[in-house]
């Protein structure tokens, strides 16, 4: 019967979903043809020794002592490409090839956070057009 036990696979390698976009490892995943669960550890808390200068400045501007909402931002993967989920756009935003990926998830998460803030605050974010079109007050 479905839903009686966890039958997904564990994440064992930082490049797992870059090398294998489908990510079907466990028997159950192969059976249903679908990866079970997130493709990154959503519970991974940030390593504050790895903050980028941009993020330090962002925290200062906002008056925060830590990464605040960015603690929940991680680098994920979409169709075998590195990407970040943008909650303001309800979709993935891809990391360009020009950006080389570090060999560990913590540093990748810091890059993801920096890129996401810059994107959300830019005029090319879809929310900018949506506000112009639909904002009521």
């Amino acid at each position, binding site marked *: 019967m479905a839903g009686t036990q966890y039958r997904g696979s564990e994440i064992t390698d930082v490049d797992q979903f870059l090398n294998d976009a489908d990510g079907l490892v466990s028997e159950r995943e192969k059976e249903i043809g679908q990866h079970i669960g997130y493709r990154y550890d959503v519970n991974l808390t940030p390593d504050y020794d790895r903050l980028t200068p941009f993020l330090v400045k962002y925290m200062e501007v906002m008056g925060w002592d830590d990464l605040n909402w960015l603690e*929940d931002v991680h680098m994920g993967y979409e169709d075998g490409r590195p990407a970040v989920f943008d909650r303001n756009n309800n979709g993935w935003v891809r990391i*360009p090839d020009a950006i080389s990926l570090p060999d560990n998830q913590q540093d990748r998460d810091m890059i993801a956070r920096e890129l996401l803030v810059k994107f959300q605050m830019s005029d090319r974010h879809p929310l900018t057009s949506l506000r112009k079109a639909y904002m009521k007050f």
Partner: protein
Amino acid sequence: MASMTDADLATMTQEERARALGMTTEQLTGKSLYIEFDPDAEERFTYPWAPEVDFNKRTEIDTDDMTSTEVNSRIRALMAEGFGTIVLKNPRGKHSLGVGILSRLNLIVEGSTGYFGVGLIDGPNVRINGRVGWSCAENMMSGTVMVEKNAGSTFGAAIRGGDLVCRGSVGSRTGIDMKGGTIIVGGDTGALSGFMMQRGRMVVCGNAGKNLGDSMYDGTIYVGGKVESLGVDAVDAEPDDHDRAWLRRKLTQYGLMPEQGVDHFRKIVAGKQLWNYDNLEPNEKKLIL
């Protein structure tokens, strides 16, 4: 489209505006929806539409004879004038105070608020010197909220990001449906806290009521005191050094670090026994198809 000015858009109906900005209902077949970051994006720290505020520019609002709507409108007007620190005096338990603030601001509430205080916020740092009613900071996106006394039920309902802190005790269903962010309770929390939690972190320095983390899908709950009972699919996990370092940092930041440290904190996570990814087993599908 690119030459469309805000003045042009202002003369249009909403439907015309949406179409002029490329938002149509045409078929998307064959089109790519992929968006890519710009590696050379400008360094900007606030939304393009956010008012320029200065934390050192401070003002007060005496809310005694004002409705909640009037108070919230006044906050927006003052932010547009550049005030970065606003003090609300005589809140007298008004509902929905300080909702929908979408940029940086220091908001200080000198007193207690009613239901749904500071909900839907994205960025401000809020300090409430009194108590708060039900659903404080529901749907909070980012920022910090510090409540000095006790809070009602559904504290931080559906929170998505930011730090929500209550120095006292809170009611039941704390962090119900939380999808991110951090909720910290200095005292005790009631029954069904973390109910249907999907992501984020909850820290309870005191005791937790029954059915803690019931039906949680993901996320982490740390409890320093006693847990009356765990809910369905909430299971114990072993805290590691990274957990303890994060707890120390967070609790010290808000002045809630227990005298005995954080080594006694219990860690609760989802057992992932409720994860369903297809409605039917393949064999069942074959029977139907």
